[in-house]
């Protein structure tokens, strides 16, 4: 089993490739992280507005149902029958007054409690369950549910800290900003990447790669490392907010990229709407990526708004499940604008498709020798802290520091 000895550097600036490729470590992550004391994004209030509305989702690789009961309260539970382990709810979404497993038709209420067992008393007084069978002890495994402005989170650990404490003030502020009015779901997209889930978790925290990997950003002038921006983290540095402000670098942008030897010949589009930022708030933020440990990401890129779930699918594959949102009060023009800017993100996204490729080639090339390590020291090593500039990858070390804590492999004298 993996131990604290695995870390060559105390500030998490070196990550051994083994951590991305070992199946046993993957199983540990599912147990100690995803089924542990973290909070995972489950969905939106707006997706299950009416009593009986339900949606299937995942916490790590554990299938979960979120639904709203008759009283309007939201419940979440593991989608596995207490009888013989079948998926109770097979549909991805719908409306129902209870959940009936197809195998033997055991029936569960919207709170996950077991409500009926066919032939529980047998037939002609023969068979069925023993009279003392405790229905109340055989419900669907429940999650604790919390919410921030209609964004639903859940945890499988009854003793997990409260959601607001888990997120911390900066993250809370950003979620409240993004969800400051009723949302409308525009649709979903999914991407199956042949790489370990942590490569994606790092990618969303990686301020350094954006304008270097996603040339479209620079080529068409959408986002540059020269803009005013930076990163903010919670006090544990497990979460991170990457932010940038629009039009704050016209002076130096071209020069800086020229110096870095990076192509930045600003082409123009026939349909500029695709990259036109229409401010929706007092602030000038046109890029905000809020990563919540371990696997939830809230994204604003220009006027394209999305929430991502990172869904591990074994040690070698990850699904990125993305919910595209707008606001209930969007004008038809703004709605069309968002549908057009949806071209920027997702598996076919003009500023995101590269991530799929980057993660796959990193997973492939790092597989063979697993004792070698990555280098994470843009913005320097040492103590992990917020930055008000963009050329750094500090939040990755924050991710790993909390990862090590949960897997109980923190090196003695770890620098965090």
């Amino acid at each position, binding site marked *: 089993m993996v131990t604290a000895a695995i870390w060559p550097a105390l500030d998490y600036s070196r990550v051994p490739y083994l951590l991305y490729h070992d199946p046993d470590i993957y199983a540990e992550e599912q147990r100690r992280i995803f089924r542990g004391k973290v909070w995972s994004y489950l969905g939106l209030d707006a997706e299950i507005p009416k009593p009986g509305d339900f949606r299937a989702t995942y916490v790590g690789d554990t299938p979960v149902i979120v639904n709203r009961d008759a009283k309007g309260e939201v419940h979440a539970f593991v989608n596995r029958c207490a009888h013989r382990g079948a998926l109770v709810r097979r549909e*991805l*979404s719908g409306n129902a007054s209870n959940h009936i497993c197809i195998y033997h038709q055991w029936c569960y209420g919207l709170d996950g409690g077991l409500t009926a067992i066919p032939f529980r008393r047998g037939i002609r007084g023969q068979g069925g369950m023993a009279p003392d069978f405790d229905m109340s002890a055989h419900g669907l495994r429940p999650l604790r549910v919390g919410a921030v402005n209609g964004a639903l989170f859940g945890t499988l650990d009854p003793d997990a800290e409260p959601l607001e404490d888990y997120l911390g003030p900066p993250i809370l502020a950003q979620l409240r900003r993004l969800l400051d009015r009723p949302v409308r*779901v*525009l*649709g*979903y*997209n*999914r*991407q*199956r*990447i*042949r790489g370990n889930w942590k490569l994606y978790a790092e990618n969303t925290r990686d301020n350094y790669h954006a304008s270097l*990997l996603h*040339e*479209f950003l620079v*080529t*068409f002038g959408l986002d540059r490392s020269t803009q005013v921006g930076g990163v903010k983290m919670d006090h544990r540095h497990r979460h991170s907010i990457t932010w940038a402000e629009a039009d704050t670098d016209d002076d130096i942008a071209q020069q800086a990229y020229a110096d870095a030897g990076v192509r930045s010949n600003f*082409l123009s*589009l*026939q*349909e500029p709407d*695709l990259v036109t930022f229409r401010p929706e708030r007092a602030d000038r933020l046109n890029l905000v990526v809020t990563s919540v440990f371990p696997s939830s990401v809230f994204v604003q890129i220009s006027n394209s708004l999305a929430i991502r779930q990172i869904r591990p699918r074994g040690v070698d594959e990850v*699904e990125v499940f993305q919910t*595209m949102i707008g606001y209930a009060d969007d004008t038809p023009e703004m*709605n*069309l604008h968002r*549908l*057009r800017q*949806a*071209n920027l993100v*997702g*598996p*076919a996204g*003009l500023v995101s*498709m*590269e991530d*799929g*490729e980057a993660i*796959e080639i990193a997973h492939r090339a790092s597989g063979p020798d697993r004792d070698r390590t990555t280098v994470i020291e843009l913005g320097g090593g040492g103590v992990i802290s917020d930055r008000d500039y963009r050329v750094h990858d500090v939040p990755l070390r924050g991710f790993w520091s909390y990862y090590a804590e949960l897997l109980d492999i923190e090196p003695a004298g770890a620098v965090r």
Partner: protein
Amino acid sequence: MNFDRLAVYELFAEYGGLLDEGKYDAWLGLFADECQYHVVPRENHQQGLPAALIYCDSRAMLEDRIRALGEANKYNIHTDRHIIGLPRIVAAAPGGLRVEAPFAVYQTDQEGEARLFATGLYRDQIEAAGGRLRFREKVILLDNFAVPSLLATPL
């Protein structure tokens, strides 16, 4: 009708052939001056949600994307292979046809390994002008909306 149907067959044969050769400009020539091109996850289509994977509601946007693909985007180096089933003429209006055709696209990587990349249905509006057929609207219903790796080259 015969001529029409064979011309439709030929149009789809060209559509797939040009894509698989990477001749994207010639491929653009199969679309009308005013055209739409959308790749829609079946998941959204079924739930009546408007978001698409690729949403080009004008020829300008479609051309922008093709240009970005060549000038700015990076993606897995691969070869596409379209297998398009017999097109089905759903409705014939004056000067236009509504046509549907099922498809499967395979991708082969640089080392010569193939995989099924996409399956779905083309739901198209075809206009006949100047003696030739062109796509006025192409809506691609993507069955396997859990996109393998990424979606760069057009379906």
